[in-house]
């Protein structure tokens, strides 16, 4: 990648970009649309968060200390695991652990395999590759986990009678849960499958656009995007499967009973 092939953005230019939004905020205030406050808060949050992350990344990229990079990766996975649960509307005991364990395992497995087995990055902890790749698979796995968990709990509550009818006629917990597990997996994978279906036709993926803006050859950017999408799909599938199976073990007891009383509404 040629680092000089993109236009540097100065503070003045950042301010000009903010002006785009300020026009909208002014419109909202003038027309009393009540959108101004939300827009201001979210715009400020976004700016502060990104600038902070920028400082941290800059620091990590300069020191290139493996322990620091791994710590950063662990924090990212931890935040993603917690955020995944926050997006669900119900809870069960151990839901946070389930989410953290699956997102950590699947995220590191897939990113590790891609860095060492496919891209052959040296050293393997090079933050230029590890951090953005991990970030992208985690972001998608997070959605898969929250959708899968939500659906699994919903299916168990909705089909309680049917599940118990099956159980009371000799179905094992696996036989009784099979349909709900399939539904939960399918739901968790929908965004990823849909994204792959329309990619390049309706939307140009953000990462690819970014690489092109940074001066990469479009065809090279496309190759990266394809690798990323395979990673994202693999990681989301693994994470959704893992978290749904762990939820299954909580919601169906070892003595073949539906434990729907373990599900509680979010407080």
């Amino acid at each position: 990648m040629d680092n000089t092939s993109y236009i540097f953005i100065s503070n003045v230019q950042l301010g000009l970009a903010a002006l785009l939004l300020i026009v909208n905020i002014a419109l909202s205030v003038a027309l009393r649309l009540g959108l101004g406050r939300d827009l201001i808060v979210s715009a400020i949050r976004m700016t502060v968060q990104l600038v902070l992350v920028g400082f941290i990344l800059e620091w990590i990229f300069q020191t290139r200390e493996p322990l620091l990079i791994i710590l950063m990766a662990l924090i990212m996975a931890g935040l993603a695991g917690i955020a995944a649960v926050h997006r669900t509307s119900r809870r069960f005991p151990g839901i946070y652990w389930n989410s953290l364990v699956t997102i950590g395992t699947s995220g590191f497995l897939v990113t590790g395999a891609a860095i060492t087995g496919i891209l052959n990055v040296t050293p393997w902890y090079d933050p230029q590759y590890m951090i953005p790749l991990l970030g992208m698979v985690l972001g998608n796995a997070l959605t898969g986990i929250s959708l899968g968990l939500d659906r699994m709990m919903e299916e168990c509550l909705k089909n309680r009678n049917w599940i118990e009818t099956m159980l009371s006629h000799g179905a094992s917990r696996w036989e009784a849960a099979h349909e709900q597990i399939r539904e939960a997996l399918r739901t968790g994978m929908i965004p990823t499958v849909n994204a792959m279906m329309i990619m390049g036709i309706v939307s140009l993926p953000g990462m690819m656009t970014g690489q092109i803006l940074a001066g990469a050859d479009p065809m090279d950017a496309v190759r990266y995007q394809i690798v990323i999408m395979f990673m994202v799909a693999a990681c989301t599938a693994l994470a959704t499967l893992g978290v749904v199976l762990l939820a299954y073990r909580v919601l169906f007891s070892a003595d073949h009973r539906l434990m729907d009383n373990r599900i509680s509404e979010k407080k």
Partner: protein
Amino acid sequence: MAISLLIILNNTYAQENIYRLLTFMLAAKNIRRLIDGVPIWSGLSFKLKPGDRLALRGPSGSGKTLLMRSLVGLDEIDGGEILYDGRSLDDWHLPDYRRRVRYIPQDASFITGTVKDSISLFFRFKANRDLQLDEYLLDSLTAQLQLPANFLEKTADRLSGGEKQIVALIRSLMLQPEVLLLDEPTSNLDESMVSNAEQLIEHWIRQGSNRSLIWTSHDTRQLDRMTNRNLHISNYG
């Protein structure tokens, strides 16, 4: 007399039957269930022998449904022991146990698909692998109950409450249980159907030497008709 007894004892099959006649099928020993620390029932004991038809009597809210659910392990007990064939429920692989002791909930449930799909699915469970769907028997049962000819091909979730209840009964009977736990099994049926359903159950229990049932109903006359023993659980509340 002595010789004939010897012959019987030498026959292992007969031995087994004598053993079962002398003992019991399903038994509860001093079982208890608490909800929020308050006992729903406690110190509850009974033995169900082959041929027994036990009426489970008690006012609404006395935990009759909860007891039935506990007897098939869908709900837990907080004390005591449930035994089947002399073995504690904890030692049973529950699907195998539920292959023998079948509970028909009051609000029977079905999958999307035809009535027949909802019946045949249950024959695919591993615990039911020794059973095969007898289509001839199924047809003759629907005819006996004077259900329309295309009844089995109907969409299951379009059935009326009464139709669901009768299909649930047929389904459980075809799965050849040893003990049936019936929770208000005819509450949604009209009068002629009630007597059909009763005949079906009567026929089932008379057909085998090793069958018994527990029945709850708000219709005390039905309990008087269909059962020969009583278990009052209001006393234990």
